[in-house]
């Protein structure tokens, strides 16, 4: 079974609906829930970090140039970042496949 999504066979589940591996939610791929993807126009972006602050998951992290880059492994496509961006630098793009 695909390890990256945290999916296991019934035989591999921990005993009695327990989780014995703390923090394993980070392995759970929530990016496949998404129908829209946020993309940042770096011409408009002021690197204010509002997207990082408002993101309810762990999608945004600061890169070496100070921009906030998306990790789509977790992005559910909620669009909060695009809504909150003070300079409208983030656009929600439809996922086609």
């Amino acid at each position, binding site marked *: 079974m695909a390890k990256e999504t945290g999916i296991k066979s019934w*035989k591999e589940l*921990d005993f*009695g609906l327990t989780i014995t591996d*703390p923090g394993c939610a980070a392995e759970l791929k929530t990016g496949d829930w998404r129908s829209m993807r946020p993309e940042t126009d770096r011409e408009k972006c002021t690197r204010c970090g509002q997207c990082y602050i408002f993101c309810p998951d762990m999608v945004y992290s600061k890169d070496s140039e100070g921009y906030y880059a998306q990790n789509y492994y977790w992005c559910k496509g909620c669009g909060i970042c695009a809504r909150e961006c003070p300079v409208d630098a983030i656009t929600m793009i439809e996922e086609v496949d």
Partner: protein
Amino acid sequence: MSKPIGIEVSIAVAEAVGLCDVDVVAAYPITPQTHIVEHLAELVADGHLDADFVPVESEHSAMSACIGSSAAGARTFTSTCSQGYALMSELCYIASALRLPIVMAVANRALSAPITILNDHADLMYARDTGWIQLIAEDGQEAVDMSVLAFRIGEDKRVSLPVQVNLDGFTMSHVIEPIAMPDQEEIKRFLPPFKPVLRLDPAKPVTFGPVVMSDVYTEARKAQDEALKATKPVIQELFDDFARQFGRQYKLVETYKTEDADTIIVAIGSIAQTGMTAVDTMRAKGKKVGIARIRVFRPFPGAELFEAIKGAKNLVLLDRVTSFAGGEISGPVALEIKSVLFDNKRFPTVGNFLVGLGGRDVTGQNFEEMVERVASAKNGDLPAYEFINVRE
């Protein structure tokens, strides 16, 4: 081995739970379970039992507290019935899914409305899909023995599931019976200390009962189903173990004069005693009648039950609950048995009777009427179920 003494069954159950050195009792009083928890509270208050008695404010809280204490690794007991069971029921599903070997005595009582405190099996049947093991006692001695066995079975690592001990309210719970109480040393030999598979421990943190999505729920249910399926041979093995130490042998399905019987009655709980007397009366009149009693309702002992009833031409199946299914299918006990018969391609004449509802007595005469009703059915033509002993 100790001699039988005259003791109220509820008090005997509480004493047995005390002898099992229970760590936590969280319970809310409800008739007719009250004497069980009252006596346990007394044992703790008087210093005879080193346990925490948690006087919770409802049955919902009782089961919540039990889940917490069992998850922390404490041997845990509660008791309830009827409306109390209904209130705690949402937690009962969680106790089994988390594989917590809580033991609960249920002094079976009918459900409202109309409100009554008297006995039938509405609560027992209400609980049948919760994933608990359900043991059913027929008399006081069995209620005591099943209580001790419940801890041993539930805490066995091959099982690790909660266990209900069902005893009929009032007709058993409030009756003084001769019961051989096991002594502390015997119990210690039979019941090792509780060592949970996993427990809440700050030194080794685990999460119990996280949320899942559709990608895990089916697997979780499959795992739980397999867990319950695996318990049946273990239960019989531990019954046999119990017999070696205490001299009383129990089976998943008990039979009385079924070997050569044309007609077999199937019942659960204490009315099987009246049933055995009725069988003797009918045998004296030359009728080949026997009775089978289901001791373990979950996991359902389908193979053992089939073995017991396969020779019968007529079956008299008793349900002590109204299941309100619309009239075209039988009551829950009969449904299970019909399913077993169908899977084994056996089609005897089957009568399903709703009896003993809300404390109404089931007499020997009633048993004879039901047997006669099935024996005289033309072309095996009987309704899905019938009320017996109801005023028209």
